[in-house]
C-alpha cells in the first residue's frame, strides 16, 4: 500500500509492504519519501505492536522505538501523538479535497472546534466582518470560547441557532 501523508507542513509518500512470517506476522517494510526531496528516501523494516492507545513500532536495524498514539479525527484528519509532540496529519490529501476548494474561492467555513453549545451569535447573514472579529461564542467545558473570522468578508450563511448543541467539526457559519 502506498499513501501520501501530510504532517507539520511536510508531505511524505509512504509505501508499506508486509514482510512478516508466521512467527512474526507484523513486520512491515516501509519506504518513506519526502515529496519535496524524493532522493532522500528512507527504507526501514519495523515490527508493529498494537497498543491500547496506538502503535509501538520497533526498527529492526537499530531497535529504535516509535511509540505513537494515533487517533482518527473528523474530516480525514489523524492526530499522531509522539512523546513530547502532538501532530495533525492527513492521508492521501483528504483535507485538501474536503476544504481546500473552499479556501481557494475566498470562502471561510467557521466550524465548531469541539463539542459544545452555541451561546451567542454575534453576527447576522449579510453582515460585513473584519479579520479577527468574533462571530460566534461557543460554550464548552464551562468556558466561553469566541470564534473569530480569519479574514474580512460578508456572512453568507448561519447554520446554527443560539442554544443549539453542536458536535466538533459542525459548520456554524459561512463567510465570503
Amino acid at each position: 500500500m502506498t499513501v501520501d501523508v501530510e504532517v507539520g507542513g511536510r508531505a511524505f509518500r509512504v509505501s508499506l509492504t508486509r514482510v512478516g512470517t508466521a512467527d512474526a506476522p507484523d513486520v512491515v517494510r516501509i519506504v518513506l519519501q519526502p515529496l519535496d526531496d524524493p532522493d532522500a528516501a528512507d527504507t526501514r523494516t519495523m515490527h508493529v505492536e498494537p497498543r491500547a492507545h496506538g502503535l509501538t513500532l520497533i526498527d529492526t536495524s537499530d531497535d529504535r522505538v516509535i511509540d505513537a498514539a494515533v487517533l482518527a479525527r473528523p474530516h480525514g484528519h489523524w492526530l499522531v501523538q509522539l512523546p513530547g509532540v502532538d501532530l495533525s496529519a492527513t492521508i492521501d490529501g483528504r483535507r485538501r479535497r474536503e476544504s481546500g476548494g473552499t479556501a481557494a474561492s475566498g470562502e471561510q467555513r467557521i466550524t465548531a472546534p469541539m463539542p459544545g453549545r452555541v451561546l451567542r451569535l454575534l453576527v447576522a447573514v449579510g453582515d460585513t466582518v473584519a479579520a479577527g472579529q468574533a462571530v460566534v461564542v461557543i460554550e464548552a467545558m464551562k468556558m466561553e470560547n469566541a470564534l473569530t473570522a480569519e479574514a474580512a468578508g460578508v456572512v453568507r450563511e448561519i447554520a446554527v441557532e443560539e442554544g443549539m448543541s453542536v458536535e466538533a467539526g459542525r459548520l456554524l457559519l459561512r463567510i465570503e
Partner: protein
Amino acid sequence: MKVLVANRGEIAVRIIRACRALGLGVVAVYSDCDRGALHVRLADEAHRLGPAPSTESYLRIDAIIDAARRSGASLVHPGYGFLAENPAFADACRQAGLTFVGPSADAIARMGGKTAAREIALGVGVPVVPGTPPFEADAPEAEIVAAAETVGYPLLIKAVAGGGGKGMRTVEWPGQLVDAARRAASEAQSAFGDGRCYMERRLVEPRHVEIQLIGDHGGRIVPFVERECSIQRRHQKVVEESPAVALPHETRHAMADAAVRIARAVGYTNAGTIEFLVDRDGSFYFLEMNTRLQVEHPVTEAVTGVDLVQWQLRVALGEQLTLDPARTLEPRGHAIECRVYAEDPDRGFLPSPGLVTSVTVPSGPGVRDDRGVTDGDDVPVYYDPLIAKLTVWGETRGAAIARLRQALDEYRVTGVHTTLPFFRWLVRQPAFVAGAVSTTYLDGVLAGRREPFVQPTEQQLRDAAIAAAVAAWRARADTRTTSSGTSRWLLAARKEQLR
C-alpha cells in the same frame, strides 16, 4: 462512618484518599457520563445523581442529600466548584442531619458575596482594592458607566458569586465597558446562577498571594505559609507555588495576621483561603475569600507536611487543631504545582474532551500527581477540563524547577490534547525562572505568540508520517473483518475511514 464526596474528578479522588487514610467509608456520586469514572471506581459505593449536565447532577442539592440519606453517610465533603460555596447546600446538609465538611452556611454567605467580604475586611482593618457595589445583570448602561468612573480604568469586572476566572473581564478603556459587563453577567449567570457583578480597580502588574488557613470549632485558627498564584491565564491560575518568591518575612506574618482577623470576624471554621493582591511597593490588599478547599492546596501540603484534607475531616468531626502555627508558617523547601488541562495550547487553549487512551505518569522523590482520569477514561465535555495536577517539591526553588522540568518531560497523556507542552515551554521562560511574574505576565506573553509550543524535529515528522500510514493501513485491513476485541482507537479510525 461514611463520607459522601459531592464532587468528581481529581478532587473527588483526593478526598477519597484522605477519607481512607482516616478509616472512613466513601460514598461517591456521579452523573450518567461518569458512571465508570475513577472516583466511582475508588469509592465503596456510588449513587447516581442524574444526567450529565451539572445542573441536572452535581449541582442538584436534593439528589445529593438523597444519596447521602440512602447510603447512610454522615458527612458531606463538597470539594471545590459545584456546590462548595453555596450556602444553601451547607444549610441543606445541616437540616438533613449531615455534617458539611466546610464552614457554616452563614460564613459562606457572608464571605461568598465578594462585596460583603470586602466590607468585613475593611472592618478589621485590612485594606481592599478600591471597587464598586454590585450591579444587577440588567442594570441600565448609564449606571454601569457611572460606577466605572468611581473606580477608574483599567478596571476588572467580577462576578459577586465568582471563582475560577468565570464571570471576570478586564476593561482597558471605556469603549469596552458595557459589552464586557454584559458578557461577565451572562457568564456569571450560567456558571453560578447569579448574574450580579461589581467593578474593581486593576493594580499594575500585581502579584497574587494567598493565605491558607484552617479553623476548628473551638475558635482556633491556624494560618499557613503563603502561596503565590500570579501565573494566570484569563484570571485563572495555572501555576501555583509556595512560598512566594522573595516575599519578606514580615509581609508573610502581616498577611497571616490579616487573614486570621478576617476569618475570626465571621467565626470561620474548616479550611479557607484569603486571597491578596500584592502591589509593586509591597503593600497588600484583600481580594476575596474562598470558603472551601482550593485546587492548589498540594503545594502547602508539600512544604508543611500537613494533610489539609485529613484536617478538614478531623475538624468537621469535632477534633481540636493541634498544628503549631510556628511550624505551619515555616516552609520546608519549595513546591510548585501545574494544572494540567485537557486543552490544546496551540489552538488558544481550546478544550479537548475525549477518551484518554494512555497515561504515563512521572514519579520519584518530590513528585506528586493528583489525577481524575486514567487510561480508558473519558474527559466529558460537560465539566471543567482539569485532568491532573502535577506538584513537585525541592529543597530550593531551583531544585523544584529542575524536578518540574524532568517530571513534565516524562508526563504523557494520549487521546486528548493537554496543556503539558505549554508547561514545558513555560518552565523554561526566564521570567518564570527568575520568579519575576505578575498576574498580567502570562496573558501578555501569550497575546504575542503565534508559533506552537513545541516545534517538531525532522525525525518526529518522519516518525509521525510512518505511524499515520501504518495506522491507516491497519484500519483499512480491519474494515474487512469483524472483531469484538478491537482496540478503541482502531474502531474510531475504522469509522472515520468509512465516512
